[in-house]
């Protein structure tokens, strides 16, 4: 078992009353590659700076080799840092940058030469010794920064987002190289990053941080396969995260189906989050898998396809769209025209009905022969607070008038107990031209039908995910058309090397150990 090198005990850090670290405790072993992973603002860099000695902790201790190092200034610590933007000394060349620490320690010239030369070959910068550091590429500057830190033979090397300034290919190359260097020099590396891929490739231990707290500590395989909560699962890799219920040990349920799993130790019927990694789901023939689905989209990603399959549809409601021809009223004397459509409305909304609301719902407009808009000033309606059909007249000051019907109805919402969602929408009247002129038809249809979906659990609004209709909006004629609005169903992301067409009906299969059940965050 490796020896404990650094013990971080209950570190708290506040800046101007803002708590950045909320009591971090962490053990770091000798010769370990530890990654502090988290989004910006989670406190990972602050923790690194406390270890380096650039910042003092408000509370807690950093113990290195059994000794509290709080009172030891940065320049006396056995720790060196590779900075985010490298912070190379611009007035020194490559050799002198690397030799800086040794020169400070007044080591003999031949020893300095020997050590610097070894470092230069470790990071592969032979031939660049007397180059101006400001003329080097990002990757080369990075290597100088690593060599400059390592030449001092620290017990710990701290790397602060050190790869983030490099381009993607170089970053991948440096990941491998860093790991290789760490293996070769055999010291502890503490690496700070927000990039989960970097963390997974290089680390022996990943520390996932959030809002100044540690969420999970584990090996890359642990945190990938066994994330402890939704946050960690989302941070590490692509996942399907599903609300479910733990029926009993080794049996979890979601979307009204039970599935075997290998997790246990939860309360009976405890609500949980379920993770299924996209690469763990296999596509099989319909009815041969654990559940069926329809391919919604398929993206080619190089090695694999990323497929979205819908396994259960959302809550939906179908309404009728009454399409009428032109029904403009012409007022020849005033050289004006007016148009408006009858509409249906919810009984609940009658109380708040206003002139401008009537104009909007009826899509009323008036214009002159020269196509100039005319304002609608004369609006009269007498709508009672009960179900029924009422006349409404809309007119201009010149006396141009149109009469429409307002249908006050009690809405029949479709409720889906399984999805715990409700959706409602109204039949509506529109002219051929209005449909042809719509630039965003789906959005307009939702607005015209006043379609609305909400969660029956907490009444929060649910997005209308899909609008289905079977007409060609540019060649529509008068008549009745059904339109279906629905919410998002269950969609699963799948990574597979096989190609599947959109619309294909498939079966989905996984084994019980591919399901990972997590406690709800709270």
């Amino acid at each position, binding site marked *: 078992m490796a020896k404990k090198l650094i013990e971080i005990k209950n570190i708290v850090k506040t800046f101007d009353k803002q708590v950045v670290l909320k009591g971090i405790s962490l053990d770091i072993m000798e010769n370990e590659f530890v990654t502090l992973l988290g989004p910006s603002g989670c406190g990972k860099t602050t923790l690194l700076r406390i270890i*380096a*000695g*650039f910042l003092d902790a408000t509370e807690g201790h950093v113990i290195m080799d059994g000794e509290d190092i709080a009172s030891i*200034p*940065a*320049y*006396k610590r056995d*720790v*060196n*840092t590779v*900075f985010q*933007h*490298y*912070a*190379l*000394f*611009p*007035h020194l060349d490559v050799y002198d940058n690397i030799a*800086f*620490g040794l*020169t*400070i*320690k007044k080591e003999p010239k031949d020893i300095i030469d020997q050590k610097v030369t070894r470092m230069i070959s470790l990071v592969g910068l032979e031939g660049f010794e007397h180059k*101006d550091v*400001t*003329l080097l590429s990002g990757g080369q*500057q990075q290597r100088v920064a690593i060599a*400059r*830190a390592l030449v*001092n033979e620290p017990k710990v090397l701290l790397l602060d987002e050190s790869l983030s*300034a490099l381009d993607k290919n170089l970053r991948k190359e440096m990941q491998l190289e860093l790991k290789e260097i760490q293996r070769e020099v055999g010291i502890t590396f503490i690496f700070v990053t927000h990039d989960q891929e970097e963390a997974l490739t290089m680390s022996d231990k990943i520390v996932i941080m959030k809002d100044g707290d540690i969420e999970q500590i584990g090996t890359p395989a642990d945190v990938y396969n066994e994330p402890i909560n939704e946050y960690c699962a989302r941070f590490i890799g692509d996942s399907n995260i599903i609300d479910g219920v733990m029926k009993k040990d080794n049996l979890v349920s979601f979307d009204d189906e039970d599935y075997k799993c290998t997790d246990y130790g939860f309360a009976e019927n405890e609500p949980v989050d379920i993770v299924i990694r996209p690469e763990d789901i296999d596509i099989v023939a319909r009815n041969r898998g654990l559940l069926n689905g329809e391919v919604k989209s398929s993206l080619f990603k190089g090695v694999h396809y990323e497929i979205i399959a819908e396994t259960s549809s959302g809550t939906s409601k179908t309404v009728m769209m009454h399409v009428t021809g032109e029904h403009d009223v012409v007022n020849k004397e005033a050289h004006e025209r007016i148009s408006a459509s009858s509409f249906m409305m919810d009984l609940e909304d009658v109380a708040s009905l206003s002139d401008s609301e009537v104009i909007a719902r009826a899509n009323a407009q008036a214009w002159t022969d020269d196509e100039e808009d005319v304002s609608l000033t004369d609006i009269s309606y007498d709508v009672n607070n009960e179900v029924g059909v009422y006349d409404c007249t809309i007119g201009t000051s010149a006396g141009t008038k149109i009469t429409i019907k307002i249908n006050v109805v009690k809405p029949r919402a479709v409720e889906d107990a399984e999805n715990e969602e409700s959706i409602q929408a109204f039949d509506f009247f529109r002219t051929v031209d209005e449909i042809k002129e719509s630039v965003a038809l789906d959005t307009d249809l939702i607005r015209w039908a006043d379609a609305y979906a909400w969660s029956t659990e907490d009444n929060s609004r649910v997005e209308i995910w899909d609008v289905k209709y079977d007409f060609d909006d540019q060649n529509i004629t008068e008549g009745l058309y059904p339109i279906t609005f629905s919410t998002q169903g269950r969609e699963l992301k799948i990574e597979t090397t096989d190609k599947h067409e959109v619309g294909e009906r498939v079966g989905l299969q996984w084994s019980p150990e591919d399901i990972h059940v997590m406690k709800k965050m709270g």
Partner: protein
Amino acid sequence: MKSFAKLTIPYIVWMTIMIIVPMLMIVLYAVTVQGNDVLTFQFTFSNFIRFFQDSIFPTVLWRSLTMAFFTTLICIAIGYPMAYAMAKLKPRSQAIMVLLVTLPMWINMLVRTYAWKGILSNFDLSSEICVYIGMVYNFLPFMILQIYTSLSKIDENLIIASHDLGANDRQTFLRVVLPLSLSGVISGITLVFLPAVSSFFIPKLLGGGQYVLIGNLIEDYFISTGDWNFGSAISLIMAIIILISMYVTKKLDKEPPEVND
């Protein structure tokens, strides 16, 4: 770009009339003798020979150079710590300090020097010390601002990095801060040494006529004696010395390139 190039024409014309032509005339005067008709120039080096033969002129020249040298040295000695302290302040305080340093420049240099004359007359000081006080007072802001600018451009991470690599505060200053601020010191030297070496009204006002510098000599020959030829010769010698010193400072001032990130 081509059309913009034409905008430089007025400046070029101005430069030619006001700088190049007078310079050429100085050269012309310096190599001729008094009483020439415009059509019958008599070329001669007698003005230069006179300068170096009479021991008084090289003595004054040497005095001017040492005076300017020590003025510059004192300005660095006072200006560097001042600029360093300014660069360490909070941004708001820094702005106020820059304002305070530049504030005296809002008043004409001549007026301020007269004020010093009044103040210094209350004390029994040698004329040399009075001239030094006037020189340092007038040129110090240039030194402070140049050094302050180069210090405030230094990336804070470099100082942290230096600590990280084992350097204490003193070592960090000597090995990182000082080398990186050197370019500011050198431009400060240019801005202080050059005007100091040729200054004439400060020694005239504060030296009380007892402390003659090269600038005063030139002024005397032009205004009092009316010997423009000899005055031009002294000016030319001064110009060459200034040219050489500018070349030397330019050589020293290899500004470190900006850090890429």
